[in-house]
């Protein structure tokens, strides 16, 4: 099977990984060199069968447009895809995603990007739909219906770049050194059962959610079926996809702040809940009861990026590594401390993440970076439940 061909898997993806994320909370943008440098130190955590990045703030000229990154098996697939896009969106610009040919990157698909906006008449016609919903529907339709097309990035002012190879080579290939972003995440993959398809690399992304993740989620089967209940079709059989959708469901649709979403996904143990003060115990009990299907079990560390920041968190028993550091406005989170020290030798503070407790990085002044409406939406997402509630 040719590696660049779209190949939606039929069984669960299993892989080991390296993850890294770097953010400037002041919204200062910086080049992709730094994240490439960080992920490259963890070369041995991946095996050359997948690498990728998510970058935020890279398309300031199109910050109000959805940037749709698509990989095509054949150029011929473009036609039907673009017709489909046109049904949902107005196209403002499209181009091949710039790249730098490299001897180590082979058998790549055709990579194209579109800057679009949702057709206003769709929103008028379906008053209950948001433009995000329309984009999600469109992505789902392309990915499940069109044989040779795969949308791998669909957020505003952000983009995912991924492929088969070591992450540093993928970064080089996509010329990420030439982009400026205020938040970067990255992933190096060590799959054990992959076909080596570009779309199978991480991050996984929907809208502005991007997820990089290390570990294997043993609750995958029920998380997938739980999401099914809410209309999410988890076609990629990856934990990352499930985590992304869960964040989308819990934060975007159910309006839970990140801390609550993390509590749903990595809740305190019942024995810990018993010792919380009653109001917090009730909250935790209710969250666990209602979101039982969202509980992510098994070992994982995950970094979720979105336009307002990033959230790193571990499984509740912390069976996967995650180190975080702060230096000035910079927040760095990675699988290994070296991946932080390599690009930021001096740090103000460095610590190991606590199981189930999210590490939240957020733009200090999102209005300045993202505009007022988006800032208002994000404010809700970062509300703290209560000091120590999630830490329990």
């Amino acid at each position, binding site marked *: 099977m040719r590696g660049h061909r779209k190949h939606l898997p039929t*069984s*669960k993806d*299993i*892989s*080991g990984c390296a993850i890294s994320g770097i953010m400037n909370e002041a919204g200062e943008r910086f080049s992709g060199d730094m994240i490439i440098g960080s992920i490259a130190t963890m070369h041995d955590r991946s095996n050359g069968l997948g690498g990728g990045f998510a970058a935020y703030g890279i398309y300031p000229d199109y910050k109000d447009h959805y940037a749709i990154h698509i990989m095509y098996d054949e150029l011929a697939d473009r036609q039907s895809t673009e017709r489909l896009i046109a049904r949902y969106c107005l196209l403002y610009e499209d181009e091949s995603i710039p790249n730098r040919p490299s001897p180590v990157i082979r058998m790549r698909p055709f990579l194209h990007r579109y800057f679009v906006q949702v057709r206003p008449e769709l929103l008028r016609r379906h008053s209950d739909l948001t433009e995000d919903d329309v984009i999600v529907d469109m992505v789902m339709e392309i990915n499940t219906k069109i044989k040779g097309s795969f949308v791998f990035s669909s957020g505003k002012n952000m983009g995912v770049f991924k492929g088969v190879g070591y992450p540093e080579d993928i970064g080089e290939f996509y010329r990420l050194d030439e982009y400026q972003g205020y938040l970067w995440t990255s992933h190096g993959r060590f799959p*054990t059962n992959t076909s080596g398809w570009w779309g199978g690399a991480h991050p996984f992304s929907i809208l502005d959610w991007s997820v990089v993740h290390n*570990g*294997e989620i*043993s*609750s*995958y*089967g*029920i998380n*997938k*079926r*739980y999401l*099914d*209940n*809410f209309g999410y079709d988890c076609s990629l059989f990856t934990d990352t996809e499930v985590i992304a959708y869960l964040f989308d469901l819990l934060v975007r*649709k*159910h*309006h*839970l*702040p990140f801390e*609550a979403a993390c509590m*749903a996904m990595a*809740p305190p*143990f*019942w*024995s810990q809940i018993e010792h919380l003060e009653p*109001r917090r115990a*009730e*909250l935790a009990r*209710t*969250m*666990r*009861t*209602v*979101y*039982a*299907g969202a*509980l*992510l*079990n*098994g*070992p994982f560390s995950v970094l979720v990026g979105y336009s307002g920041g990033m959230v790193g968190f571990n499984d*509740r*028993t912390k*069976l996967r590594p995650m180190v975080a550091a702060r230096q000035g406005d910079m927040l760095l989170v990675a699988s290994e401390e070296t991946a932080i020290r390599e690009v930021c030798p001096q740090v103000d503070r460095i610590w190991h993440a606590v199981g189930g407790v999210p590490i939240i990085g957020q733009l200090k002044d999102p209005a300045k970076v993202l505009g007022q409406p988006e800032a208002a939406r994000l404010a*809700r997402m970062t*509300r*703290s*439940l*209560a000091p120590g509630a999630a830490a329990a």
Partner: protein
Amino acid sequence: MAPRLVQPEFSVQRDGERCIACGVCVRQCANQVHSYHPEYEEVRAAAERCVGCHRCAWLCPTGALSIIHTPPTYRHGGHWSSEAISNVYKQADSGGVLLGAMGNSQPVPVYWDHLLLNASQVTNPSIDPLREPMELKTFLGRKPDQVELEMSGPEPSLATTLAPQLELSMPIMFSAMSYGAISYPACKSLAMAARELGTLANSGEGGLHPDFWDFGPSMIVQVASGRFGVTPDYLGAAAAVEIKIGQGAKPGIGGHLPGEKVDDSVSRTRMIPVGSDALSPAPHHDIYSIEDLRQLIYSLKEAVRYRKPISVKIAAVHNVAAIASGIVRAGADIVAIDGYKGGTGAAPAMIRDNVGIPIEFALAAVDDRLRSEGIRNLASVVACGGFRCSADVVKALALGADAVYIGTAALIALGCHMCQQCFTGKCNWGIATQDPYLTRRLNPEIGAQRLYNLLSGWAHEIKEMMGGMGINAVESLRGNRHHLRAWGLSDRELKILGISAVGE
């Protein structure tokens, strides 16, 4: 009348070198198999009365007794088994309905045995339940789609109030077994064990003996078609109320407690005359369709002031998924599905062995259906009908059950030897009888301890299996069919079960 043609099924073998003629067997056999003959100073057996309950063999202090199953061996015929022939004899002798008790006794496929569980290797660590937390706590009841938080205060607070939930320490409950069908000490054993274990027992349709009202918080009470023992206080005493529509052992027919088992105490509990047969009608006479069920559900919710979940129990029949969907939409907080191998105190054998579908398929179909309709969270699904061991339970949870009911396994823990003669009222183990000479044989302290031991053992095994799968909370096992693989099943069966074949 010509002699009966039915032949004994058991041989009572007494080792003459060991028998001391102490008479324990004589005193313990309610079927009067053993008798002492003082003139010869020996005990003899009338094997034709033996039902194979093994009470005598168990208590014989010298181990002199063996009960051997020796069904008549007619000339082998593939179609006409010895049992089929014997059944014809029985009915030609008696003219009656073939009665059966406990679960289906035919050698039908056990789908649990075709399902295999997963375990972690390398890519994912297993979890050692002796070292790490391993959570089996389960909540049954209606859940909202989402939790809403009130964001206006200094910190977010709950804006969602949960519907009433049943909190279980483990996803295993004792299924409905009525006082009347089983003895007072059997009921008490179940109630005591449920309380000790932090789970629930179920009154069945026989009302609640006043002595057991203290156990109310550990009991589900049933409202069945006979309405036996149903009063506002009865509903109020329990943790939840279950409407019994059907039973896996006998879908489509009502209950029948023979008058012999209706003694004074049973009569007062059921509110029926002593010695009268307790006949539950086949249907509820106020339920002729789903909207009537809705009325009953809400009547009961009113009666318990919306403080307790209402469960609806049905037998697994052909279109169980659609029925379950209707029940959820009718307002049930819990749907209990009783499979084809569920037990009973008495059922026509033809019904027991030929009506209904296996719980494995019923459960998978119901879980799928509720999910596809987006209403899975509106009700918990409880599976029952023939769970033999913790692995069966784990498989059921993985297929989608929130919890399971165990009945037969609990009775076996209490001493039941599956002789399947519950309807005779002569249970030598003191379980399915009201004979005061027999009920004494079950000490509820011992019974409760045995049940506690059984479920503690199962809980430990479940934790081990979960740990192997890298799961430390039961909600991550529930409906997680990725941890199941099947062998020896057709593609169609796999599809219905929603699982892959081994090796996939």
